């Protein structure tokens, strides 16, 4: 097994360190809370000559993504980091990146969207772009953020799709944790050298990128991207497996925590999954068959796999850290319900929208959800969508 160093790092430091070890060709970014530090720390590495990266300090996130698109189209590895309003300002260019099938990697530190203005965590920013053609990988803690970032480079380049790796704003980004980092050499070998098949700076094989598509070709190109997203599932699994074999930390499309025989199941993404695990352990100690399903990859959504994993559940609660504004359930719950429906699994599913704008979720909140599930089995009825932790 490869040698690892145990260090204390915040989520942002972990992401910046992953970027240093990846040593991309170009990083273009604009500072935004709580993602600022990622690129701030990284620019220090550039100044100190620890990376060979061309660092482009741009005047907005729209330009940051534009510069990454240019760099990636030219044949380089391009990365950036952002959050919330910054991701929203990038939105136009995010669609360009995925449509051109450029393997850009973006660290998104989840934060609520304005207005009212709020710098704290929820998942509204990433969810807003779930249909943008970017692979979305959620992290439970700084360790996963670090590991996901390194894998994302390979996933993006193999799938020829851009990847967003998220961490929860402040909770992960500014919280210090014990994490294990790999040696620079191991990361260098794992990510390897980027050799695109076609790129603009290859004068031996000229290409045009970004030509006008119109009704007679656009549909076909979007169909290709949809197929690439479908194929990305096995690519993510392969690369995650390789990472696990080499470095001992394995990841799948989602994590099953004490799920195999669980009757009361919570589906939760990001740092809340960690909180939920503590409650699951406590409930298990008192004989309650509680379990957790933590989606790691939200795009492509592993629909069939998640439905199979939830087969044994008797009651399911989905925790959504963003609202779909009367869609009606939150985005994660909608996906889970659709997955179950298509497998003919008519199970009681209840949605809890929580934690918007950084509102705390405590152990007793999660416990309450499990209690609700238990009383649901005894015949008590609940609203399909509940707002947990909001003042009535």
């Amino acid at each position, binding site marked *: 097994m490869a040698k690892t160093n145990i260090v204390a790092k915040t989520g942002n430091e972990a992401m910046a360190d992953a970027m240093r070890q990846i040593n991309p060709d170009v990083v273009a970014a604009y500072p935004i809370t709580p993602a600022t530090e990622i690129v701030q720390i990284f620019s220090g590495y550039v100044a100190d000559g620890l990376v060979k990266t061309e660092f482009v300090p741009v005047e907005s996130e729209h330009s940051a993504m534009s510069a990454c698109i240019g760099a990636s189209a030219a044949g380089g590895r391009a990365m950036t980091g952002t959050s919330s309003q910054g991701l929203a300002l990038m939105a136009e260019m995010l669609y360009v990146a995925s*449509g051109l*099938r450029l393997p850009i990697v973006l660290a998104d530190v989840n934060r609520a969207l304005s207005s009212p203005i709020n710098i704290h965590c929820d998942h509204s920013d990433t969810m807003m772009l779930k249909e943008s053609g970017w692979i979305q990988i959620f992290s439970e803690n700084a360790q996963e953020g670090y590991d996901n970032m390194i894998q994302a480079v390979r996933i993006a380049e193999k799938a020829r799709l851009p990847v967003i790796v998220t961490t929860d704003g402040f909770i992960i980004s500014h919280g210090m944790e014990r994490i294990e980092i790999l040696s620079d050499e191991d990361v260098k070998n794992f990510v390897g050298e980027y050799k695109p098949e076609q790129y603009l700076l290859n004068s031996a*094989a*000229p290409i045009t990128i970004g030509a006008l598509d119109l009704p007679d*070709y656009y*549909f076909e190109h979007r169909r290709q991207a949809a197929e*690439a997203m479908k194929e990305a599932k096995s690519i993510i699994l392969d690369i995650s497996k390789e990472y696990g074999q080499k470095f001992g930390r394995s990841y799948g499309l989602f994590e099953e925590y004490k799920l195999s025989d669980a009757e009361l199941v919570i589906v939760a993404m990001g740092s809340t999954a960690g909180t939920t695990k503590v409650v699951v352990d406590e409930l298990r100690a008192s004989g309650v068959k509680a379990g957790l399903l933590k989606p790691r990859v939200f795009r492509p959504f592993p629909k069939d796999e998640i439905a199979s994993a939830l087969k044994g559940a008797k009651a399911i609660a989905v925790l959504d850290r963003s609202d779909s504004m009367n869609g009606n359930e939150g985005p994660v719950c909608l996906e889970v319900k659709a997955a179950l429906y298509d497998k003919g699994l008519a199970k009681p599913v209840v949605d809890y929208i929580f934690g918007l704008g950084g509102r705390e979720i405590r152990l007793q909140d999660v416990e309450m959800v499990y209690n609700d599930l238990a009383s649901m089995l005894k015949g008590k009825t609940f609203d399909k969508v509940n707002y947990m932790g909001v003042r009535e």
Partner: protein
Amino acid sequence: MKEKETKPGWKELPAGGLIIGGGTARDFKTGDWRSNRPVLIPEKCISCLTCWMYCPDSAVIVKDGKVVGFDYDHCKGCGICEHECPVKGKAIKMISEKEAKNK
């Protein structure tokens, strides 16, 4: 169904809307928007190549230093060739596409 025969499906196209190879503008025929076309009057033409220099679409065909005609697949009918022709009475005449069709 007819389009299927002439245009590639999504599995055949290069990914991401790439156009592979250079010089592909030649294959993209832009002349079909034209409403007027230039016609050469060879007996008046002195082959000074002024029209060739001014043509924004490189649509003036020159062979052995002489203007021999126009590439109607790419000429958009802007008429700059006729306008710039220094020959008295003009060696290039713009005619309408309708007129050209009836000829």
